[in-house]
């Protein structure tokens, strides 16, 4: 609004907003704090000031081999995202730049595959994985994550590509650029930001996927989601350690997530809200 806002009102809004924000963020904050406590401290009642030990982080690694599921998460999320991009870029490209009457139907159909409930195909997928020896393999889960995110990737890329004006491509054609030159000099530089956003959001989604990654892995290919889920029946009260493991599991993606607020809206609403 063009009208200047009174400082009093701004201060009130600020206080309310901060209180709400801190309440929402509190569970995460408290996890980080607890991860810096000793185990006895962690269950000794409400306390926001930890003794500041890093012992738990070391324990998570030495006792539970944290690095292995972490590397699995990295490999699976990045791998499946890149695979999805390789498959989706040409398709999204074609739909954005040479749309036909059926383009819209194809897009809607792709979206509809995303709506199939995972549990509905749990049994056949499980049996197929078992028969092909893909259970607990990185390759199997990578393929799975690629497939479930492919519709979102196609959609996101499509909405980005569609914003590249067709006249610019025509201009490059008039300027004598062949298909290859058009791709290298004109399209790629203009498409890179959209591809990067898609990559970012999809890594987040793949990192946090918690159905297939828990059900189709046991130890070798288990990513952080499965690793953390195994803490659900702890032998005793290792809350500080649990908090350290949780913090490490969410920290990388939390930071990526902060950078992808806008893409998140567009990606998860299939371009319906920008």
């Amino acid at each position, binding site marked *: 609004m063009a009208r200047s806002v009174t400082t009093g009102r701004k201060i009130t809004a600020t206080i309310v907003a901060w209180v709400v924000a801190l309440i929402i963020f509190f569970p995460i904050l408290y996890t980080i704090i607890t991860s810096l406590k000793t185990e006895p401290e962690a269950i000794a009642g409400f306390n926001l000031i930890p003794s500041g030990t890093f012992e738990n982080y070391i324990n998570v690694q030495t006792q539970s081999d944290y690095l292995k599921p972490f590397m699995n998460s990295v490999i699976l999320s990045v791998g499946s995202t890149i695979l999805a991009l390789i498959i989706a870029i040409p398709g999204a490209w074609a739909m954005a730049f040479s749309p036909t009457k059926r383009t819209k139907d194809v897009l809607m159909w792709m979206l509809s595959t995303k709506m199939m409930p995972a549990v509905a195909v749990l049994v056949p997928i499980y049996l197929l994985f078992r028969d092909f020896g893909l259970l607990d393999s990185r390759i199997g889960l990578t393929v799975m994550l690629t497939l479930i995110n492919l519709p979102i990737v196609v959609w996101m890329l499509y909405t980005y590509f569609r914003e590249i*004006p067709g*006249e*610019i491509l*025509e*201009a*490059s*054609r*008039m*300027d*004598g*650029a*062949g298909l290859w*030159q058009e791709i290298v*000099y*004109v399209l790629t*530089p*203009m498409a890179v930001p959209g591809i990067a956003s898609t990559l970012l959001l999809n890594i987040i989604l793949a990192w946090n996927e918690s159905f297939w990654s828990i059900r189709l892995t046991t130890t070798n290919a288990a990513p952080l989601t499965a690793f953390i889920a195994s803490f659900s029946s702890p032998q005793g009260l290792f809350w500080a350690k649990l908090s350290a493991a949780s913090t490490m599991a969410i920290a990388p993606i939390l930071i990526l997530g902060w950078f992808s607020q806008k893409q998140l809206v567009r990606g998860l609403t299939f371009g319906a809200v920008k």
Partner: protein
Amino acid sequence: MGSITLRHVSKTFGEAKVIPDINLEINDGEFVVFVGPSGCGKSTLLRLIAGLEDVSGGQILINGKEVTAAAPAARGLAMVFQSYALYPHMTVRNNIGFPLKMAKMDKAAIDKKVEAAANVLNLTDYLERRPSQLSGGQRQRVAIGRAIVREPSAFLFDEPLSNLDAALRGTMRLEISDLHNQLKTTMVYVTHDQIEAMTMADKIVVLNRGNIEQVGSPLELYKSPRNLFVAGFIGSPRMNFIEGAYAQSRNAKTVGVRPEHLILSKESGLWTGTVTVAEHLGADTFLHANVDGFGPITARVDGEFGVKHGDRVYMTPDESKLHRFDDKGLALGNAVVAA
């Protein structure tokens, strides 16, 4: 050299026949303007010439050579788009130099040509900027710069000024005309604005629903429109059309009188009317009056002719400049048969 010939060119999009059948000759060095209402197929026709769309039928010849199936770049034409279509990630220098780079020209030669073009277009100080850092007029000049460095056999413009404000549009109009005088290269220019058409063209092609209504110099179209459509489209304010008894008395279905061909008086005249609105432009005044017997009429009078809303005025058409049309809307020739 830059002559363009269209022979029985047609274009269909799915079911819609956007261009039924067009024959047109554009001579080397001519400034040709395609004018017509929005959606009449001007852009489509231009894009067919450019090779950005395939023709559905007919032939296109450039310099006498058939190019109907040739790729856009192979036709030796340059196009300036309505949205400018600049490459947002390239500097002005690289934008202008892009077609030369595509032609595999060496870097030193590209720089020389780009700088020469920038000089002509007053862009020298902006060569290292990105399009997003330029004003509308500057972007327009970059788009033109990108077209001239190629030394094309003809320029194609698609409503290049429609995104600019009125003042800038006037300036750019002059600049483009100036450029044509300097380069003497064929230019095909699309617009829906008849003022642009009248001021810039050597030859105007009036299009309506994908058909050519008339081809001629601006003055020809103004003086002898072939039909009602052209008569109504060319000239501002619009020609007044009168039907009924007066038209019959002139042996026509419809009679057209341009606003500037009405003689006004506060005392006496052939027709009497009441002023509804008087638009004072300074030198001229556009009078909108309700004429007794046949309704609203627009007249153009001297700025000194002081009238206001509600005043009674008298007007007499200049009989030597009447346009007469038959019941098919075709012009009957200017010679007035006195009743």
